[in-house]
Each structure stands twice: as structure tokens, then as C-alpha cells.
């Protein structure tokens, strides 16, 4: 019988901040979305002060009860590195790890020797000690059960961060007291549909006739039910093959109206996407650009997403040219733009197949890009960049509460006083 585990960082972004600042240990901490917009990660202490997911910062911070909260802009350089640490600590301890999101990883725990509970406990302690991230671990015979177990471990303090749902009798007990809303893969619509039929708990759901589930919720629902019954339908997936697109999309620090500013931002996003592409040794054969106004501030709604097939490339200069050409074709004066992005699809291994009539010199291109990437890796992202991506960059998102990038920048590493 397979055993899957799911390990998940508690308030991951907040925990990354806490890892380097002991003063935050018991404080309510909130991390804000891009542009310091709204709350996207909260510690338990912040939740108990009534800070909700998505609360806009400029309102929430003025509430008297929010006074003790320590706010942070999202520091993605730090979070990415801490996620890498978590992944590597796990990789050294189990046969396979599937990073499901930045802070959630599926583990292959099938036929490991020894006591599984002790092992999961050790894994959790190792992630805490080495990667400095507090976590919860849930496990069971399917991914859906592991995910549910993880949620239980998180919600019930008495489980001390660990929940074992391998035993069908223990599963049955939890299923009877757990709402179907907690099940991975059941969206709001599905839950509504089920609740309207009087199906409230996971037990109600698993005891239904599989045929009627299939009629009601298609094969997707039937698969969720089978998984909850202990029949594994979803295997651990391989990330390297699952990459379908690379996107670089952001809201601007302020609303932009002028073409040169938008052009600069789009060029920057194209350059970022190109870097990601090269880091994975891929080329893209399709590029699309999106620009849009803000739907929430009363401005007239304007959103365009246009794409074009391109000669496969990972060269920043080519991608910038394509992206800015496309952006120019949809940019209209008179709107206040709020967000833009560049999406690369139709990805393939670099240099796999030259175009029949290539218009570029691929060797020269990859040499130039390799030099640029190496310089940026050593001296910091964006040290060498095409001038079309802007020098002043007045459109960069606001990040007024950014902490140091403790693990990725030498001049920002953590400081400790000699005693």
C-alpha cells in the first residue's frame, strides 16, 4: 500500500521572517501581497487579533487592535530560498518529494522501514532545526487523505503537528467530524451542491454511491471520493516535466498611463521571464502579453491579453522585442494601467531543434546571455540589464516594509552581536 505525506509550513512567509528575528517569536506578524496591498500570510497571533486573509493594509493597520502587529512587504527572494532549504532537508530524508507549492510538499513514505510516526516526527523536527520553518505533517494511503490529515494537524493543537490517517478506523472517526469543505479538490460550487443534498461531513460523502457521485460531480468528484476511500488515484508528480508556462506578472507601484513607462515595465517582465527560462535550460515558442486597468477603483475596465508564436528563443533581447511589440499593439492612451505581464508558453529544451531558417546566431546569443546571467548571479539580480527595462523604474511595486534578504545578499545577511 502506498503512503503519501504532506508537509506544510505554518504561516510560511511569516515563519521565514521569524527565522531571522527572534523578537518576532510571539508577536503577531502579517506579510502583505505585492505592492503592500493586503494581508496574505498571518501568524496565529495575528489571526486571533481579527486580521483576515486579504485585509487591505491601509485599513487594517489603522484598527486599534492591530497596533501590536508587525507588518512586512513580501520578500520573495527570502521565501524562495527558505522553500529551497525545506525541500532539500526533505529530499535528504525521503525517497521522493513533490513540491506542490512554495510551502507544501508531498512526500513518498511508501514502505519505509521503522515506525512511520517517529519518522514523520523526526522529519518535522529536522525541517524546524535546519530550515527554521515550523510545519505540520499529515499522512495516509492517498494524496487527498494526506492533505486532509495535514489540515487536521494544523487545526487541532493537541495533535502536535502530526496526523496519521493510515488506519481506516481512525479515518472513519475523523471523517465523521470533518466538513467536506476541508477536502482537497472540492471547490465552493461543489461544496454548495453537496450541502444542498444534505451532505455535510466527509463520512456523508464517502458513503455515497460512487455512480451517483460521478453523475453529480463528473470523474473529478469520483476520483476525490475514491482517494478518500483509500484508493490511490494520484501519484507523486514529477515537477521537471510539468512546466507548461513561465509568467512574470505584477501590479505596478502606481497607475501608469504613458507608453514609455508601460514599455519599460513590459520589457522588465520579459527580461525576468527570460531569466527563468534560461535557468531551466528552456526556450519558448510562444509569447503573450497582458495589460489591464484596475477593476476595483472605478476606472473604465480595459484588459487585453495577446499572444504570438515566435521563433524559439531564450534571448532576453528577442523576448523584449516581441513583448514590447505586442504590448504596443494593445496599449491605448487614456487608460490608467494597473498591471501587466509576460507569459511564455510552448516551452522546449534549449537548442533542441534549430529553426529551419534561423534569423539569429544561437551561439552568440547564448554566450551573451550566459555572461549576463553569471554577472547577475554574482552581483545581484538586475546589475546588468537591457536599458529598455528602465533605469529609474518609477513603476516598481511598493515594498516599504521589506526585510533584509538574509540568505541571498551578502550585504543583507543576519547580524549577531558578540557576547
Amino acid at each position: 500500500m502506498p503512503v503519501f505525506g504532506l508537509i506544510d509550513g505554518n504561516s510560511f512567509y511569516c515563519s521565514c521572517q521569524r527565522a531571522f528575528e527572534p523578537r518576532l517569536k510571539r508577536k503577531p506578524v502579517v506579510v502583505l501581497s505585492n505592492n503592500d496591498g493586503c494581508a496574505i500570510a498571518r501568524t496565529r497571533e495575528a489571526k486571533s487579533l481579527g486580521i483576515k486573509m486579504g485585509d487591505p493594509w491601509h485599513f487594517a493597520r489603522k484598527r486599534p487592535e492591530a497596533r501590536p502587529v508587525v507588518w512586512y512587504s513580501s520578500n520573495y527572494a527570502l521565501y524562495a530560498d527558505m522553500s529551497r532549504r525545506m525541500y532539500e532537508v526533505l529530499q535528504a530524508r525521503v525517497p521522493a518529494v513533490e513540491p506542490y507549492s512554495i510551502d507544501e510538499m508531498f512526500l513518498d513514505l511508501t514502505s519505509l522501514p521503522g515506525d512511520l510516526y517517529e519518522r514523520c516526527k523526526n522529519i518535522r523536527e529536522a525541517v524546524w532545526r535546519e530550515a527554521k520553518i515550523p510545519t505540520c505533517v499529515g499522512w495516509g494511503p492517498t494524496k487527498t487523505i494526506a492533505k486532509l490529515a495535514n489540515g487536521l494537524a494544523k487545526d487541532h493543537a493537541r495533535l502536535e503537528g502530526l496526523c496519521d490517517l493510515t488506519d481506516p478506523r481512525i479515518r472513519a472517526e475523523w471523517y465523521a467530524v470533518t466538513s467536506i469543505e476541508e477536502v482537497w479538490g472540492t471547490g465552493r460550487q461543489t461544496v454548495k451542491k453537496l450541502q444542498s443534498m444534505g451532505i455535510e461531513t466527509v463520512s456523508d460523502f464517502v458513503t455515497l454511491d460512487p455512480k451517483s457521485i460521478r453523475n453529480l460531480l463528473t470523474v473529478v468528484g469520483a476520483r476525490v471520493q475514491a482517494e478518500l476511500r483509500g484508493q490511490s488515484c494520484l501519484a507523486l508528480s514529477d515537477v521537471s516535466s510539468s512546466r507548461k508556462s513561465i509568467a512574470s506578472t505584477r501590479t505596478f507601484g502606481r497607475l501608469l498611463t504613458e507608453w514609455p513607462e508601460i514599455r519599460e515595465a513590459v520589457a522588465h517582465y520579459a527580461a525576468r521571464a527570460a531569466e527563468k527560462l534560461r535557468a531551466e535550460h528552456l526556450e519558448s515558442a510562444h509569447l503573450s502579453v497582458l495589460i489591464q486597468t484596475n477593476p476595483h477603483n472605478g476606472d473604465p475596465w480595459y484588459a487585453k491579453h495577446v499572444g504570438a508564436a515566435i521563433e524559439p528563443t531564450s534571448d532576453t533581447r528577442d523576448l523584449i522585442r516581441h513583448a514590447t511589440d505586442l504590448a504596443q499593439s494593445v496599449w491605448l492612451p487614456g487608460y490608467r494601467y494597473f498591471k501587466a505581464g509576460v507569459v511564455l508558453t510552448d516551452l522546449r529544451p534549449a537548442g533542441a531543434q534549430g529553426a529551419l531558417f534561423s534569423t539569429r546566431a544561437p551561439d552568440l546569443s547564448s554566450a551573451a546571455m550566459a555572461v549576463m546571467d553569471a554577472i547577475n548571479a554574482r552581483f545581484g539580480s538586475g546589475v546588468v540589464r537591457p536599458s529598455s527595462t528602465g533605469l529609474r523604474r518609477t513603476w516598481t511595486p511598493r515594498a516599504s516594509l521589506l526585510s533584509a534578504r538574509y540568505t541571498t545578499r551578502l550585504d543583507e545577511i543576519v547580524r549577531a552581536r558578540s557576547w
Partner: protein
Amino acid sequence: MAYQGDRTTGFASPTADNIEGTIDLMAAVLDLRQPSRYPVRVEGDALVGRGIKHGDILVVDSALAPRAGVVVIASVGDELRVCELTQRPDGWWLRPSGSTKPLQVDDDTDVSIWAVATGLVRTDV
């Protein structure tokens, strides 16, 4: 063209089978790619007796077990400190360099070991 010890135009190099690369200090000593390794900047000269000066970069490892006499980064109340670790029958203690009293490593005193120092980099020699 980069120097290649096994390619000479006159006489064959007697070293051809013994070419090794330059020493990679990053991989051999510091190895900050390990998930448990962190760089820490030292502030203050309190540990100058141990050869640790203000501005030094300590490479610390959170996976290493504490041992008596090692230098650790400790979390003490609201701050991180660099100090020496000692062992007594009742557990681990942080030994201050000055005349202040030692601190016991304990959840009750809010003192914990954050990582153990494994190397030091000084750029200001």
C-alpha cells in the same frame, strides 16, 4: 584560450595525468548551499580572544549537534548573539567573554541554540 596543462606544443607535459582544478573554497569549506548553512555578520569585538572580530562573516550550520567549547549563534530573548558554548552536568550554557553571568540554554530562559559556527570569512585582513 584558457591554459590547459596537457596541451603543449613542444614537449609533452609530464603532469598531464595529474591535473586538478583550483580549490573551490565554497564547496570544500563554506558550502552555503547546504540547507542548514547560513552566513552571519559578527558585530562587536567581544570574542576577539577567539579570533572573531567585528565585521567577520561566520558560516554557521543548524544541523550540527552542539559540543562543549564551540562558538554558536544563540537566540537570547529578542536578539541573536555570537558566543561560546559550555557543558555542565545540568545542560548547555552560554559563556560570556566579559564579567556577565553565564546563561543556561533553556526554553524557560528564552535561550536557544540557533546554529553552530563552522567557518569564518574575513575580508578585512
